[in-house]
């Protein structure tokens, strides 16, 4: 097991290396000379040259790349061009809303999608199945901001049940925290729910045809227990896989959701950084999200051994 974990960790190195190379080239090929931007309008060519030298911008690509990776390895993401603050600090300040949003979405999506998929598979071909699959297609097709604005319009403006926008920290009370996250999580979770439901249903359809399911039924075990204990356990691997892969959807969607619901999270930080062309911040956020994504999927690989003891490494 330990050997497997180590081997999987090693396998992420080339992936993260490629990500790092891409993220670094982003700054390298970016239009506009960072030295000119930092120096400001009044700078003389000598001053610009000086800044360029002090930043090491005059040295070759590979040298700068290796230095940059070394810096990243020490968790130093540089400073924002726009505010001059360390990117680490900017990210740290914005981490809580995004993490909260993703956590709530993840819990909500799994708790909805897995039972929906199981029910659809067990009622395959009936109107219940067709209705659930219809919703899944809609979930795929209706973009986040459409769901978001619609929900906000109905539940926040018309009915006044939930706050329209904004975020309050979890330290200021559980309900006020959660109430600000219900609508965003639902909007963000739609695609994710659709994805997990479809995969759960497809896998369950296969599992339900297995001999052990028939045996379990023959033994007189109730339908719920057969579905959720015997069958679902055996359908777990593809479902867990798609939950991991789908995290990319959540990350991309968070950028939009945070804009719609005015959540001060990493997505907003990204959008602001893009609009200001604040490359160190863009680099930092992409690196952070990509490593999170890679780590989640590494974790998923390890979860396999728990959900399916037949898999050994």
């Amino acid at each position, binding site marked *: 097991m330990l050997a497997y974990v180590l081997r999987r960790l090693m396998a992420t190195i*080339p992936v993260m290396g490629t990500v790092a190379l891409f*993220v670094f080239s982003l700054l390298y090929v970016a239009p506009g000379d960072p030295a000119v931007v930092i120096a400001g309008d009044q700078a003389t060519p000598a001053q610009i040259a000086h800044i360029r030298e002090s930043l090491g911008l005059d040295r070759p690509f590979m040298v700068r790349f290796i230095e940059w990776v070394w810096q990243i390895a020490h968790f130093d993401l540089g400073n924002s061009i726009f505010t001059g603050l360390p990117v680490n600090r900017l990210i740290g300040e914005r981490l809580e809303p995004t993490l909260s949003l993703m956590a709530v979405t993840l819990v909500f999506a799994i708790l909805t999608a897995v039972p929906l998929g199981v029910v659809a598979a067990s009622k395959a071909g009936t109107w219940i199945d067709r209705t659930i699959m219809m919703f899944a297609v809609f979930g795929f097709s209706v973009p986040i901001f*459409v769901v978001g604005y619609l929900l906000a319009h109905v539940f926040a403006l018309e009915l006044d049940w939930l706050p329209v926008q904004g975020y309050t920290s979890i330290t200021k009370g559980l309900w006020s925290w959660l109430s600000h996250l219900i609508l965003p999580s639902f909007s963000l979770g739609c695609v994710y729910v659709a994805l997990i439901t479809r995969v759960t249903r497809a896998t369950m359809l296969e599992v339900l045809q297995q001999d052990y399911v028939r045996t379990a039924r023959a033994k007189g075990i109730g339908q719920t227990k057969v579905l959720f204990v015997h069958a679902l356990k055996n359908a777990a691997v593809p479902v867990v896989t798609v939950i991991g892969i789908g995290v990319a959807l959540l990350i991309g969607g968070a950028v939009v959701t945070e804009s719609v619901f005015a959540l001060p999270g990493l997505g907003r930080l990204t*959008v602001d950084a893009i609009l200001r062309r604040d490359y160190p911040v863009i680099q930092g956020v992409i690196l952070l999200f*990509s490593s999170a994504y890679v780590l989640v999927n590494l974790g998923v690989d390890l979860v396999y051994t728990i959900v399916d003891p037949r898999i050994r490494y």
Partner: protein
Amino acid sequence: MTTQSSSVSSLVAPHGAVALRASAAFKTVRRHPTIAVGGALLVCMILIAVFAPVLGTVDPSAISPMLRTRDPSAQFWFGTDMMGRDVYSRVLYGTRVSLVVGIAVAVFASIGGLLVGIVAGFSRKADAIIMRLMDGLMAIPAILLAVALMALTRGSIGNVILAITIPEIPRVARLVRGVVLGLREQPYVDAAVAAGTRTPKILYMHILPNTFPHLIVQATYICASAMIAEAILSFIGAGTPPIVPSWGNIMAEGRALWQVKFYIVMFPAIFLSLTVLAVNLLGDGLRDSLDPRLAGRL
């Protein structure tokens, strides 16, 4: 392998088979009604895009400060925005942007992914390097990658298409590579190799046609997600220039007023959802008809 026989027959079909094929197509559509529903909806959208100028629209960029934020009425069917532009005209012209971006991305990503995938699938040496690179690109969430690419360039439709295409290429490449690796083991490819057929001809005659069914299904999904991606990019201000009436831009402009003038956001949202739904339904139906083993499963 139904997929193979169908594509082979379409390659060698004599002239007399046209009627037969038409009736086969009709049968397919009847068996998979999602193709008909999705297709019809999509044709409507294409017609709207083509005939936008004659569908009672005015200049979508014409500003009239006297007529700002009028609610929907007989004169302004979808109301007017904060600059007095007619939302109906803007939404109809926006159909063009979405369809062009969706189709262009689907085509370019398919071609790019096909080339990369075939090379990776046919050359062991290139495979290792190419797939590592593709894995790396895929580790960056697609929207984030597109947003980062847009940060490098000016906002224009061409750049938007490019920025959405690049993150999709690794996904197509991986699919094509998988198909190619499977096809290489097929007896008829072995036979072709044994008969001394040159590699380019094997690729062109035997491998390429068999990747198409998979590619077409994948392309419809790419088209759908590209239209959403375009709207997202424009919505956060990193997409098509604000002067272009794209659905994302209309929503971005309506965003400031959404609590009081909900319709400005809602009309483009409905059009976008319907178009994406149409393409997704079409894709589901095509997948089911091209790969019967999957039918009714996913």
